[in-house]
């Protein structure tokens, strides 16, 4: 269950990308945070690594997005496995 804090960079100020941000906000795993100029902070809390990767790739494909950078990654796969056993 990875948790990651990401910085999404748009090609122009964030407020010109309302539609994209609404799309992001509609995804239950994504929380949006501060933005300034062309950068938006988001947190992705997804059940599996695969889903995390999917969201990551999806965000990168969004219109106006030119870069997605990692600010924080929570590695706690180990704990989940123990919990299951």
């Amino acid at each position, binding site marked *: 269950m990875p948790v990651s804090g990401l910085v999404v*960079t748009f090609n122009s100020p964030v407020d010109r990308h309302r539609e994209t941000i609404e799309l992001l906000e509609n995804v239950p795993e994504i929380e949006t945070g501060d933005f300034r100029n062309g950068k938006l902070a988001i947190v992705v809390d997804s059940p599996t690594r695969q889903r995390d990767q999917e969201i990551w790739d999806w965000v*990168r494909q969004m219109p106006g997005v*030119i*870069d997605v*950078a*990692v600010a924080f990654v929570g590695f*706690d796969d*180990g*704990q989940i496995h*123990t919990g299951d056993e």
Partner: protein
Amino acid sequence: MNKRITTIFLSLVIAVAAIGYFVGIGDGVPLPDGFHDSPLVDHELKHAASGDAKLIEAVSYAEIADAEMGPTESWQLTAKTLPTQTYDLFAEIKPSEEEKLASSQTRSSRRAYNGAPPIIPHAIENTTDAACYSCHSNGMKMGSLKASVMSHQFLANCTQCHAPMAPPPFQNVDARVSTTFVGLPAPKAGKRAFPGAPPTIPHSQWMRENCLACHGGGNGWAGMESTHPWRSNCTQCHAPSASLDQAIVSETIPMLPPLEVAKE
């Protein structure tokens, strides 16, 4: 009676002494200094530690003797190997225009103009050259993070040319500037003499001696990779520019005078 007074008096003395002792040791205890705090010693995490197989809960000095300090549940006899990417020199590479555009945009966002040394997109702390080289000499990838390869020879004093992000204590300081400077953009592609001809090198080769730093070798920029990384002599086919390289500056190409052909 006397005895009782003595007892009361003595108990009072003892009580005062005890309180004094605790007040005394309480007073001099240093406050948290904030220098070495890290998220890992945060209270919240401490609570979480009990449920985490990777963490050992701290115990008081008195309990040390009895506490189990052995390996945690997730301890393994042999270290897990980090997944390393194998680089296949001969894998087919199909750079797409979209990837190239995305890469160009990220590249440009880290430079004031084409040809400027890129900024360092992360904070650094008392970083020596050796610390920079450990990731950037051969490049490396970890998860989604990528350390780019140095495109030039080893040079001392990395921060002489590469501006870092703000130092950690000042990361929240507003450093925006209002400027009308517009830098030279990166070229989209080298020019070709005719369709199918090898493109010329559209940038200076100065400080970009290592072509594979950007154009291949497993650490290149997506969309800008060479489709033929096994060929190692790049300038055999791709012509550099004398003027961009500040090599020989000449307004016109010097030539012998044209043939004198007698007119009828």
